[in-house]
């Protein structure tokens, strides 16, 4: 569907992307991952020509992207931004309607499509259609951001760290929703993230960038089983640590005080997934330890995890 052949992007003397070649297959979720400044976002934006490439070729449907009329080509590639960037002066339906309007759909078709899309992400069309983006929560806004990209049913969706502005719980839900959605729509999705856990969860195939170069491309399990370099090993190492944490280890790490309150109680051995599940409905959980129950609040847990991931990103 999309192919990079010896693509280089230079800013002055600085190489942002250095002689990169790979192929993205139709219908897969292809995740570009790497630390910040590694060239992954630049790579994504070169696909829809928001950033012009310096050398090499990018092919879309077997044609060099420079052969397409740029605005029309972009309408074949839905675009979801990290900043969400819904147009604040337009209603939800106007935001979604932009691409279909440019494609000269009839008003009737556009309205039908808007209702269909809102229902697909579980937002009641009558309630939300005429609201302004500012009346929606951050999570709802990014759902609309995704719908705007999907509106004219493009074969490709480009997503630039789409969930990083959301809180961790919403992010988890979004990842699940995206996988579910992909089962229905089966698009070619290019997804940029710096979060290795997110990447592992979503990717059909992963592409790890480091300093403008591709370190490894492959299935997620290949990254764990046969990392191509020590950089890869180190980068994905973090995810295992994070996901293997237990309630007891968290308590030890976070030096929490003893408290008596009405929160759900977990054992010391409970793994982090169970803590996430409880925290999605409660402000905190109580961990049973030898020295009595200890409170782990939501903000403590996520703050801790964010700090740890901050090291990799």
């Amino acid at each position, binding site marked *: 569907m999309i192919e990079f052949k010896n693509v280089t992007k230079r800013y002055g003397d600085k190489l942002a992307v250095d002689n990169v070649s790979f192929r993205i297959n139709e219908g897969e979720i292809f995740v570009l991952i790497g630390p910040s400044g590694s060239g992954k976002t630049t790579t994504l934006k070169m696909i*829809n020509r*928001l950033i012009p490439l310096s050398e090499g070729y990018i092919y879309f449907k077997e044609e060099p992207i420079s052969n397409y009329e740029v*605005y*029309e*080509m*972009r*309408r074949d590639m*839905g*675009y979801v*931004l*990290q*900043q969400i*960037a*819904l*147009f*604040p*002066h337009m209603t939800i339906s106007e935001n979604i309607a*932009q*691409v279909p309007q*440019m494609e000269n759909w009839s008003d009737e078709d556009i309205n039908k499509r808007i209702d269909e899309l809102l229902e697909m992400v579980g937002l009641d069309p009558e309630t939300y259609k005429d609201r302004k983006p500012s009346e929606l929560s951050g999570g709802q806004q990014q759902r609309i951001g995704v719908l*705007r*990209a999907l509106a004219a049913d493009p074969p490709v969706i*480009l997503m630039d760290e789409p969930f990083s502005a959301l809180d961790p719980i919403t992010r988890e839900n979004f990842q699940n929703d995206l996988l579910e959605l992909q089962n229905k729509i089966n698009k070619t999705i290019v997804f940029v993230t710096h979060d290795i856990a997110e990447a592992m969860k979503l990717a059909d195939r992963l592409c790890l960038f480091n300093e403008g170069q591709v370190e490894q491309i492959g299935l997620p399990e290949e990254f764990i089983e046969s990392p191509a370099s020590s950089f890869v090993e180190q980068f994905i190492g973090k995810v295992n640590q994070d996901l293997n944490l237990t309630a007891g280890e968290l308590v030890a790490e976070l030096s929490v005080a003893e408290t008596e309150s009405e929160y759900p109680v977990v054992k010391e051995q409970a793994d982090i997934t169970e803590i996430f599940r409880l925290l999605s409905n409660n402000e905190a959980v109580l961990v049973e330890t030898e020295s009595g129950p200890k409170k782990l609040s939501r903000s403590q847990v996520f703050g801790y995890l964010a700090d740890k991931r901050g090291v990799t990103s």
Partner: protein
Amino acid sequence: MNSFIETFSTRRGELLQTLIEHIQISFISLLIAVIIGVPLGILLTKTDKFAEVVINIAAVMQTIPSLALLGLMIPLFGIGEFPAIIALVIYALLPVLRNTYTGIKEVDPSLVEAAEGIGMKPLRRLVKVEIPIAMPVMMAGIRTAMVLIIGTATLAALIGAGGLGDLILLGINRNNTDLIILGAIPAALLAILFDIGLRLIQNMSYRRAVITVVSMFVVILAIALAPLLTNRGGEITIAGKLGSEPAIITNMYKILIEEETDYTVKVEDGLGQTSFLFNALKSDEIDGYLEFTGTVLGELVKEPAESNKESEVYDQAVDALESGLDMTMLEPMKFNNTYTLAVKKDFAEENNLETIEDLKSVEDEIRPGFTMEFNDRQEDGYPAVSEAYGLNFSDVVTMEPQLRYQAIESGEINLVDAYATDAELRQFDMVILEDTKRVFPPYQGAPMFKQEFLEEHPEIIDPLNKLSGKITDEEMQDMNYRVTVEDELPNDVAREYLEENNLIE
């Protein structure tokens, strides 16, 4: 309050007319400023280097004082609404331009990226995303421009553009607060009205806003252009400075010329300053105006007077005009609107004062109140008087021209400088002290034309020269009094004088 209501009811017609003029000038200027400023502002967002230069130029133009800008327009574009509109547009351009530029520049870059990323072409991005988001900032600029225009348009009256400034300047000139308020309140209300209008337009859809603005423009342009379409053939324009005296005299010129020739005369009185009129005459915007001999020497040709004798000053002025400027003056009237010293009539009688020299006998009792200018003028102000007559007053107070009369009425001062034909001399029952030593140069009024114009219109010379040697200081004071204080129409006063003196039938 009562006097205000009275002023309002007598000036209702004038108020309506000046209000309509004011709306025309303001609306057209604002529209042009927007038509130039908004697209230019948008264009500048594409070229940062150029943007700074253009915005700085606009900023420099705005630092030109509004009166100076209006004055600069005359040699280029003459007098009337056209140069006023150009000056106002120049004045209003900066806020429109800068706010458009800033508004578009400050649109969140991620929104621009989103618009590009989903495939919007530049024009659609501008219309659908950038302009709507920048709209509040752009409108703030347009509203600032609007307030600037409506305020500055009151000065446009000085170059003959009309508008509410006519009432305000007349009020200032006559020290008539009611008139000032009568002009100022509608100007303020107009600013509020325009603001409401702009808000309404802001909330309309593009199409409705454009239709509304265009139809308003057509209506206003039609009203503005209607008078221009009527035939102007055989018309002579005679102008005068601001004040009752030029208004009365130019009306006399009109009556005399129209009585004896086939020409019609358009009186353009109330123009701001000598330089405005002089430039208007030079550029043929007007055909002639009332000028004073002393002013010709002092301000126009800038030669010192060789004598203080009236006829010699007149001859010198005519010579200078004819040789250097191809202009000339017809014969002057009698009154001499020069500086003079005046006292209350009863004070003069008590102390037997007739001339300035007589002041010497009561030197210790004199408490003068002079204008700053008079107190300061070396050649023909207090220093010259003091030297020529050996007068040395102990406590001279300087004050605003109009305040002097209140001060002399309350007895705080008992000697003022004045112009010989000021209406206030009559109003406050004062007499002029004769300048026996001719310290003050003569300022005699006469119509001034280009020589070429008189050669082409010789028929107007005789009617105008009928005023030669007519109208004394007292008669002029009296007529000024009737117009400024009693609010009679200059044209009525002029006609009455001409009839009484058998200058017309």
